[in-house]
């Protein structure tokens, strides 16, 4: 198990980073060149001003009409993304790795705060999963790709959370599993619905540009 742990934390970690950067870079450059070739009448309207305006206004909870009229998913979405971001960057175990791998000493969340954020993330994921089963308009359009995206995110959060409560071999096993599933998640981002993590900035900026520049109207 220790060998696997070291493999996951070392070479696989680097491989994950390289694969993610290359795959996402390839997808972005392919999309951009195809957009220029085939979506010229859309690309022409991209505007920094209106694009950033749209991103900003949708980044505020309960600001956009969609957020206001879907209060539960608004809460779940913001809680999930914010807690994930904080955990990825500042969870105490992660900060050790930042320092160990890159020599970066950064502020760390207390173990208790990490646990709270993990619970928040898991609860938010639970809400999203519940919607897929119980809310008719979500259930109607839910397919395997949507469950895959949810599972890919849930497993590393869950294993990371649980590993803190265990000791000895079990902790090592769970931590290894946490690292491996997180690596699988990162590698698969460019190839699943999770690619919205990157593409959303472009789609949001584009619709914002159309509404602001052509339609003289807000889009939130």
């Amino acid at each position, binding site marked *: 198990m220790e060998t696997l742990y070291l493999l996951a934390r070392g070479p696989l970690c680097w491989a994950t980073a390289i694969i993610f950067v290359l795959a996402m870079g390839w997808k972005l450059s392919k999309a951009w060149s195809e957009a220029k070739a085939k979506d010229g009448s859309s690309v022409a309207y991209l505007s920094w001003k209106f694009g950033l305006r749209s991103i900003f206004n949708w980044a505020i909870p309960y600001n*956009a009409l969609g957020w206001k009229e879907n209060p539960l998913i608004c809460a779940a979405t913001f809680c999930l993304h914010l807690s994930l971001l904080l955990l990825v960057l500042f969870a105490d175990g992660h900060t050790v790795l930042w320092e160990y791998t890159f020599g970066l000493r950064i502020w760390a969340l207390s173990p208790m705060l990490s646990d709270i954020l993990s619970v928040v993330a898991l609860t938010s994921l639970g809400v999203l999963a519940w919607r897929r089963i119980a809310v008719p308009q979500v259930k*109607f359009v839910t397919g395997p790709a949507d469950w895959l995206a949810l599972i890919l995110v849930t497993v590393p959060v869950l294993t990371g959370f649980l590993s803190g409560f265990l000791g000895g071999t079990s902790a090592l096993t769970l931590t290894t599993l946490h690292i491996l599933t997180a690596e699988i998640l990162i590698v698969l981002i460019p190839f699943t619905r999770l690619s*919205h993590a990157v593409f959303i900035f472009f789609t949001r900026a584009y619709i914002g540009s159309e509404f602001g520049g052509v339609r003289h109207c807000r889009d939130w």
Partner: protein
Amino acid sequence: MSTIRERRITDQGLEIGLAALTQDRIREAVQAIRNSETGAKMKVYHETCMRCGMCAPACHFYVSNDNDPSYAPVAKVHQTMTRILNGEDIGPQDVYDFAQIAYTECNLCRRCAFYCPVGIDIGYIMSTVRRFCYKLGMVPQYLNDTGNSHASTMNQMWVKEDEWTDSLLWQEEEARDEFPHIRIPLDKEGADIFYSVIGPEPKFQTQLIYQAACIMHVAGLDWTMPSFPGWDNSDMSMYIGDFETMGRVKKAHFDAAQKLKCKRIVMGECGHAFRSVHDVGNRWLGAKDSPVPIVHSIKFFADLIREGKIKIAYKIDDPVTIHDPCNVIRGRGLMDELRYVTHALCSNVIEMTPNREYNYCCCAGGGVINCGPPYKNSRVQGNRVKAEQIKRTGATIVISPCHNCHSGLEDIVHGAKIDAKISFLGDLIYPQMEKPAHFTEPAPCNGGGHV
């Protein structure tokens, strides 16, 4: 929940199209949509839509049909474009379903854009589904007829060239009873304003041309209309997915204004035509904005009143509410100008909720009302929410500066037995504007007599 197959409506155009469908043709159209008709935009939308369902409450069809999930915007995509892009087997009956969903259960009103956190333009996706259906000859009969008219005559209503000029001369003659000096100037080169209307105006709404001529006359404007094709700014081809004809129609319109060397185009109270000239058709012609400056009537009227070119003699006291048409409000941000004009004409304005850019669609636009009588019931039922909106205001007049909204709202208030009249802005401006005596006095004639 109902399924699209259960709520199928018999349409002669779709039945004829269906009989001619083959798997090979469908496969070819699928390939065209996937490989040549769309690019990265569609692919990214397909991949990043999180199927969160947040867009559902945006849609009047969804809300009015008791939150039936199959009417949610994302569900409409799921039942059509998702299947095309996933490479699923699509049979002739499926294409019939696609056509009914895309042409008659989505108004392309873009209200769902306010609900999608990812920023997906579902209007664009449903337009592309229409394009797919059009390529397979699967277009509702009545809508297809308007497209054929556009392709043959450059106007929407099979108006012949002599009928067009006859209608204008007839309205000029009628108006001379009221304004003895009035002209509807035809083909006047270098005029400040090229005034364009939609096909139905000369066909069966000539009073709107009459009113516009009177307003232009009283405001003392330098204006003209063309005697030749290009006078019609409407564009059902855009909604059919026949972009080739859309391009021809738009070119004829802009060319007519340029041929007459007019400074700007002022267009009547139409929403979809406005979308076509400043947002969609111009792009097909390779123009980032419209090749000739275009002013919608709402803005035109607001400027006339603001600049004192027409003066409003009196305001009406009736309770009035405002319907915000998607293509001029969500499509061009004219909500404040619309309110400026309305408040200049009416003393008792009651706002709908929601309103302005958030207003619910009329359920007629996007070519839906042009699909004709077979879909009237589903259209009225599909906008119960709008009837409730109007009813809550208690208004007896609904201002609606768009032809499609106007006709659709008439059906909706009639269906819901609401005692309200639908009104264009021109319907109020024309009777309420000051008509100074020198405009209405008989013209002097040789020998000091009168004509």
